[in-house]
Each structure stands twice: as C-alpha cells, then as structure tokens.
C-alpha cells in the first residue's frame, strides 16, 4: 500500500476487433478468399496476438509464420490494412478498429498458403549479392580493426532482419520478377561500404546489371515499409552514386 494511489490507472478494457484475413488452403480452395474473425483484444495487444488467438480458439487451420514475436527474426511480415508490417510490432491501438482490419500475405512472391509465401526468390536475390565478408591479403593474427567512423558508415544496413517488407512493397519488384529488390541492395551496401571488405568491386558490378539498382524508381515505398527504420532508398542511392563516380 502506498500513498500514491491518487491517480488510479484505468484498467484496460478489451474490445471486440474484427479481422478480415486472406485465406487460401491449396488442398481445398481453388482461389484465395477472405474470412472474418472477431476476437476480444486490448489496445496494447499486437496483431500477432490476434492471429494466435484466432488459430488457438476459433480456427486451427489458419497458417502464418512467426518465431520470435519481438520484431527480430523477420518471419511475420504481412500486409496489414494495405501496408507491409510485422504482425508482432503492430499494436491494435495504432489501427482503426471501427472497420475490419485486413491481413494479407506480402505481395510479389508466390503464395503457398493463407499468409505464407515462398521466400526462395527473395533469398536467391539476397545470396546473389554475396552478403558476406570478402577479404584479400594475409589473414591478420588478431581481429580486423576498424575505426568508429568506418563502422558508422554502414551501420544502417546492419539492422536488417531480412523480413522482406521492403522488397514486397516495391512496385518494380511486383511486376519485374528479375529485379534484385531493395533488401538485397541493402545487404550489398552493408559490405560495399565496410572498410574491411574488399569485394565491393564485384558487388557493384552485379548491381550495375540490367536488373540492378537502375531499376529503382525512387518511390520510397521500401523506406516507408521497413520495420527497422532503415533508410532503404538512401542505401540504394549510395550504390548508384558509387557506380557513377567509379565510372567517371
């Protein structure tokens, strides 16, 4: 018992929230369709909580990916009310619950089931920019030292969790299945501007291809979508600039 009980905190009230969820079971459905579910939720609940409630209490066949539940594994990217977000980082209080909340799979990747898409093309693009440290010369006997400024140069890109929110919000990626997509370019940027890395030339050469950075239309969809707040379009522009200054 404390004497500070003058301003009582109002107990949160659960409200019924309706979700309009994209369903597609390849065994039974010939076409995807929408289904509505209503669950009681607190304003501080996440959309992921709602999906788990629906799966646990209403319809066990609802399929979606999730792992950490804390915005770090990048597995639960989906389109919520038309915007790419992580279900585990989207709170009910930030959504308009007077209308059903739509939940769809991310666009531009082959649909597998309900909210699950085939991520292989996304990771193929990621792999093709060689997202690992490439070095030459003698291997040092201690760690590769780097100044704080050199580390800060590529800091933004290191925050990527490969959730694909950016790539699947890109209008170029939706229609051009060969474009590398913003996530792969962020990964390349992270190593191109790392002072310890010496594979920049090869990566720039890859991104200079027909389906590389020049496909980007600078619409900033990717920057808006990134749940990690990475300045994705800026990372792409840095690669373009490096390519141009390398040439002239």
């Amino acid at each position, binding site marked *: 018992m404390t004497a500070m009980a003058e301003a009582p905190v109002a107990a949160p009230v659960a409200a019924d929230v309706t979700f309009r969820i994209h369903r597609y079971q390849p065994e039974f*459905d010939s*076409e995807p369709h929408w289904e509505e579910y209503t669950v009681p939720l607190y304003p501080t609940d996440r959309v992921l909580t709602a999906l788990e409630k629906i799966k646990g209490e209403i319809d066990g066949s609802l399929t979606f990916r999730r792992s950490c539940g804390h915005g770090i594994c990048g597995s639960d990217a989906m389109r919520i009310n038309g915007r790419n977000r992580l279900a585990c980082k989207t709170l009910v209080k930030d959504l308009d619950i007077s209308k059903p909340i739509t939940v769809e799979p991310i666009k531009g990747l082959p649909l597998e089931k309900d909210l699950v898409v085939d991520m*292989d093309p996304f990771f193929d693009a990621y792999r093709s920019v060689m997202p690992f440290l490439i070095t030459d010369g003698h291997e040092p006997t201690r760690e590769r030292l780097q100044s704080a400024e050199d580390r800060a140069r590529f800091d933004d890109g290191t925050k990527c969790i490969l959730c694909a929110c950016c790539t699947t919000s890109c209008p170029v990626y939706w229609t051009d299945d*060969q474009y590398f997509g913003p996530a792969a370019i962020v990964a390349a940027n992270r190593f191109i501007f790392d002072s310890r890395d010496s594979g920049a030339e090869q990566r720039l050469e890859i991104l200079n*291809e027909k389906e590389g950075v020049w*496909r980007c239309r600078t619409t900033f969809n990717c920057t808006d979508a990134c749940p990690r707040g990475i300045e994705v379009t800026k990372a792409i522009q840095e690669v373009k600039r490096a390519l141009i200054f390398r040439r002239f």
Partner: protein
Amino acid sequence: MSTTAQPGPVNIPAPRSSQRSSQRSNFELYSWLFMRVSGLVLVFLVLGHLLIMNVLDGGVQRINFAFVAGRWSSPFWQVWDLLMLWLAMLHGTNGMRTIINDYAERDQTRFWLKMILYVAAGFTIILGTLVIFTFDPNIG
C-alpha cells in the same frame, strides 16, 4: 524443387525463375544518367522556347511562316530546336521504355511494344531533323 503429385487443385502463380541474365554493360547506368542530364537541359530549352514563342513581343499571334523561316535561317535556333527535338524524344522514349519494362510481363508483348515505340521515335526524330535541315524558306 518438385511440383509433382500435389493433392487437390493448386492455383499458385508460377514461381519466379531465379536465374538472372548477367550482362556486363553500363547501358542502364548511362541511360539513368542521361535522364537526369537531359531533364535538366530540357527545363531550360523548353521553358525558353515557350517564353520566346508564346510570351515575348507579340506572343503566339506573330507566329507565321515568315517568322519560322526567319528563325531557322540562324544556326543558333537550328541548333536549339535540334537539341530540343533529340533530347525530348530520347528522354521520352527512354521513359516509355522503362514503363514498358515495368508493366509488360509477357516477353512477346514487351518486345512488340518496344518495337512500336522505337519505330515511332525513330520516325519522329528523322522527320524533325530533316525538316530543320532542309527547310526551304522559299516554298511558301
């Protein structure tokens, strides 16, 4: 990846092919740069053109055959108009090319749309260039 023996009707869009054609060329780099540079130059050329033709002394009312003939007798205006024609046509054609690349998904559709575009652009550029160089002020 095996796509055999799946139960029931499966209606999944064809997966993206993962092999990328790797052509080593700087064409896309130069075309990207060209769009920026030509865009900037065109701002001056086109605004200047509009100002001279439609606003300055007498405006659009004074334009007639003699006016055009007088202008094109000077190499300066010939070069101005030629530059404007070429830059605008190439800028526009390249923009249309990217739009076609963006939205035409079938290979055949994309090929033929681009062919129509290139023929139309080539025709306009050649015709315009011809008119500027072979303009005869005496045919009027």
